[in-house]
Every structure is written in C-alpha cells, then in structure tokens.
C-alpha cells in the first residue's frame, strides 16, 4: 500500500465527512442560506427589468456573475477561513503529528471546500431555472462551459486562499484580508454591473484578476450569443478566459505548496498556545 495514496484516499473520506458536518452546522448552513437568499431576492426583483437596449432580463444578465462570484468566494474566503481557524485550534498540528497527515488534511480540505462551492452553485442554478426563463435555453454546451469555468475558478482561487490563510497571523486578520480582497476585486470585476461602465484603468485592474473572467465565462455559457456585444471587445473571449484562469491556477499551485510547507513547519504547540492566549485577550 502506497502511504501517500492511502493518505490521499483518507483525505477524500475526510473531505466528505467534513462537508456533511458543515451541512448540519447551524452557523455554516445559516451563512449559505443568508447569502443565497440575498442573491435570489436580487434575481427576483430583477426578473421583469430589461437590460437597456435589449430584450434580455436584468436577472439573466446578473445570474452568471453571481455564479462566478460564488465560486471565487467559496474558493478564496473558504480556504482562508478554514486554514486560519484550523491553525489555531490544532487541526493542522494534529495532521502534522500523523504519518502523511498533511496530505490527508489538504486533500480533505480541497474536497470539502469544492463540495461547498459546487453545492452553492447548484442552489443558485436551481433558483435561476425557476426565476430566469432564459436559463433553460442554455443547452448542453452552455452547461459544459459552466462546469469547466466553475472548476477552473476553484483552481484559480483555492490555492490563493491557502496562501493568504498561511500568511495571516490570526483568524481575524485572515477574515479581514480575504473579505477586503474579495470586496475590492468584485467592485471592479463587472459582477453586478457591466465592466464597460468603469473608467478604463479600473477595467484594466478588473481584467487582471480571475473574478472578471469567471463572470464572463459564466455569461458566455448562459446568455444568448447576441449578448456578447455588451462585453469588452464585443466578444466572449473564451481563449483569454481560459488563459487568465489557467495562469492564476498555475501561479497559485506553484506558490501555495512551499508557503503551506513553511507555515506547517513552523506550527508547534507553544505557538498555538501563544495565539490562543492572544485571542483570549481580545475577547476578555
């Protein structure tokens, strides 16, 4: 039995178990319900409004962006939060104390975060199918695009979440950092309003990050081809989408392992104790 493969398999079952636990946890499920409800409410109020100059409903134009945002949010903020918390509560150190424990831990985390992200994606899609009639016309090719964009979106964001989670000194810092990053990027990524409405230099910044391309990819999958006219360059730019998302994935996957290793190597019981004492001071 190859110990590394064995640990990876343990990671799969670990991820599934953690995912099931998050389904029965009031706090986790509450967050999902609140954020999903917010999205659905937005879609509901947009259902009769039209994108100016077209007969496309505003809801249909927003929904793909929400799907893209969901993937990026779950990937980045989910990974940051999990790592930051599990460094402090000892989960990581426990993994370190096991033979091949870090392999199991990482695989488990990737599985549980991916399942959470895909679960969120499915909920919004189901809500969309009910509220946004245009979605039914997407066709098999469209759904295939949704699948690969979603997958690449996870790959492009999860490793970066791991990097931020490793560098942050406390869960609070981590949460603040990741929310700030997400907020800043989503403001310039044309998720809730077209990127073409932004100043040119903001458009450049927006296009440098994966979130814009996630939204664009989802729109290309779910909107009629004519809607591409509203995009930058009047095209869905599928090759550029693939290229940018792949570039972020590769960079993240190259960068994350050494940073994770460095962080894990430094983890020790006394370091955990120091952080815990600091946390207690913040509360007390």
């Amino acid at each position, binding site marked *: 039995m190859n*110990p590394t493969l064995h*640990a990876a398999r343990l990671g799969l079952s670990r991820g599934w178990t953690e995912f099931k*636990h998050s389904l029965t946890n009031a706090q986790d499920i509450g967050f999902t319900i609140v954020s999903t409800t917010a999205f659905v409410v937005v879609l509901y109020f947009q259902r009769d409004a039209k994108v100016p100059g077209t007969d496309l409903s505003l809801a249909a134009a927003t929904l793909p962006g929400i799907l893209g945002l969901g993937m990026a949010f779950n990937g980045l903020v989910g990974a940051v939060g999990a790592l930051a918390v599990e460094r402090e*509560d*000892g989960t990581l150190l426990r993994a370190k104390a*096991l033979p091949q424990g870090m392999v199991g831990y990482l695989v488990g985390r990737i599985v549980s975060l991916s399942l959470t992200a895909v679960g969120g994606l499915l909920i919004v899609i189901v809500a969309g199918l009910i509220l946004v009639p245009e979605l039914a016309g997407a066709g098999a090719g469209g759904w295939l695009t949704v699948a690969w964009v979603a997958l690449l979106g996870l790959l492009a964001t999860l490793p970066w979440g791991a990097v931020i989670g490793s560098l942050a000194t406390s869960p609070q810092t981590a949460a603040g950092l990741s929310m700030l990053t997400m907020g800043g990027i989503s403001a310039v990524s044309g998720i809730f309003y077209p990127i073409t409405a932004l100043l040119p230099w903001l458009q450049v910044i927006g296009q440098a990050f994966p979130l814009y391309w996630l939204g664009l990819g989802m729109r290309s999958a779910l909107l009629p081809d004519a809607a591409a006219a509203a995009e930058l360059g009047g095209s869905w730019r599928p090759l550029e989408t693939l290229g940018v998302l792949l570039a972020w994935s590769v960079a993240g996957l190259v960068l994350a392992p050494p940073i994770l290793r460095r962080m894990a190597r430094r983890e*020790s019981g*006394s370091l955990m*104790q120091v952080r*815990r004492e600091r946390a207690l001071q913040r509360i007390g």
Partner: protein
Amino acid sequence: MSVTSALDGDINVTNTDTAIEVSGLHMSYGPLEVLRGVDFTVAPGEVIALLGPNGAGKTTTIEILEGFRMPSAGHVRVLGTEPAKGDERWRAGLGVVLQSWRDHGRWPVHKLLEHLGRYYAPYSTPGRPRPLDTGELIEAVGLTEQAGRRVSRLSGGQRRRLDVAIGIVGRPEVLFLDEPTAGFDPQARRDFHDLVHRLSDLDDTTILLTTHDLDEAEKLADRILILAGGKIVADGSADRLSREVSRDAQVRWSRGGEQFVHATEDATAFVRDLFAQYGEQIGDLEVRRATLEDTYMAILKKEEG
C-alpha cells in the same frame, strides 16, 4: 559519506540501545536562552518523567524531540533519527499528546479515532499491527459511553483522554505526553496510570511525559529528570533522588501521651532500639522518608543558589 560531514560530527553514531538521545541541546528564542546544554538518554521501554518549574523548557524540549521545532544547537536522536529530518515512517513510530487541542469538534469520538488511526495502517508490521482497534482503545481510555458523542460535547477530562487515545492509536514506539492528566478527576487519573503501565509493559512503549504532579511522576516513571535553568539538574529514580538530597528519614512516635520526632539516617536501627528500650509503650509509629516533593523542592532551591 563525506569527510566534512564526519568533521561536523554529523555521522549517525546512534546506539540502537537508546530510544532517545539528547546531548548539548541548546535552544534560544532571540536573546532568551531556554535550554543551555541539555543531556539525557532514554532506553527503549523506559518511562521518563520530565519535571521542572513553569518556563523551564519542558515543552520546548518535547517539541524538539517531536520534530516540531528546530533546536539552536545540539545532538538529538529519536529512534535513531534526527527529528528535524524525520520522514513519515519515522513519524509513524511516534505518538504525540500536546498540552491543548480543541480540533475536530464536530467529529464523533469513535469516527475521529478510527479516521486518524487509519493513517498508520501502511506502517503495520506482523510484530506491531497498526492501528489499535478503535473499540478497545475507547474502552481502555474509558470513553465507551461517549463513543458516539461529538468531540465538542466532551468534558475537559474526557477530551484529554481522547487526546491520549489519539496519541497511542498508532501503537507508537515512543510516546510524548505533555501534561497528560491536567484536568483529570482522581478516578480518571488512576485509569490513566493503569493505561500507561499497560502500554509500557505490554507494548514496550518508551514514554516521555511532563507533569506537575510529583505523585504521578513517582508512580509512573522509572526515572525522573528535573529540568531547571535550562539544564537537567537531576536524573534518577525517585528513590535515588531522595537519597541524594537527604538520607534522613523522620521517625514519629508517641509514648505516655507525648509526641516525638527524630531524624535519622538509619531508621530501622533506630526503631529497633526504640522498641528494645520501651517495648509496648510505643504507639503511633510512623517512618517517613523524604517525599519526591521534598526532594524536588530541595533540588530546585539548591539550583537557584
């Protein structure tokens, strides 16, 4: 093997008769020197208690042995390997119980123990099947009733027993226990002591534990190490340490309604004389050697100068 590594003293001259070897271990956190030349060895199957005041560097020492922390200088070997360079096979031979965990709160006890135990399966050998059976282990640490409960719903003592169970689920050859019984009630403490005895008797596990409970150290350990001022200042069985500090025993008795106390090096001879002289008038006889606590305090006082 290169000449330079031989000059560095980096050649592994490990004696297979030792489970743990530490010599000239130094550890500094910035300008703060925590360990200043710690030396000791532990034979396979030995149970060692590491005592010392708070901040003496007990946890630091254990973390270096576990491979969780790089020493500033010194020679350290655990199971013949330098901990900082230990691979996963080496890791599989260790059991680690830290001072505090609060991880995996959502996992049911038996499920967590089974999951963590499975990591050791590739390292199972006919002579040492790994991991231990989850059910038996849960029973051994007295958590049968809580087996289905979520970890976050356990009491402090129960949580600690689970930590110990996780530490031994892989049938370690060397087990590190950092204050394992903090927060135990007397019954749990006694059960834990039985468990440690069984581990060291049946499985020949080498155990290094830190504790503030001197009574516990005396009951469990074959040998006691006292760490103070960044060095090992005493090394020996509880009995030997007591004799080194003071050979005197206190003899107390009563005669004719009066209480007497006398300190003597040879209590047996003194008591024999006492009976020869007074016979049946002697009552409430009590002979008390210096306890480990007396010894410990005396050694620390001497160290502080």
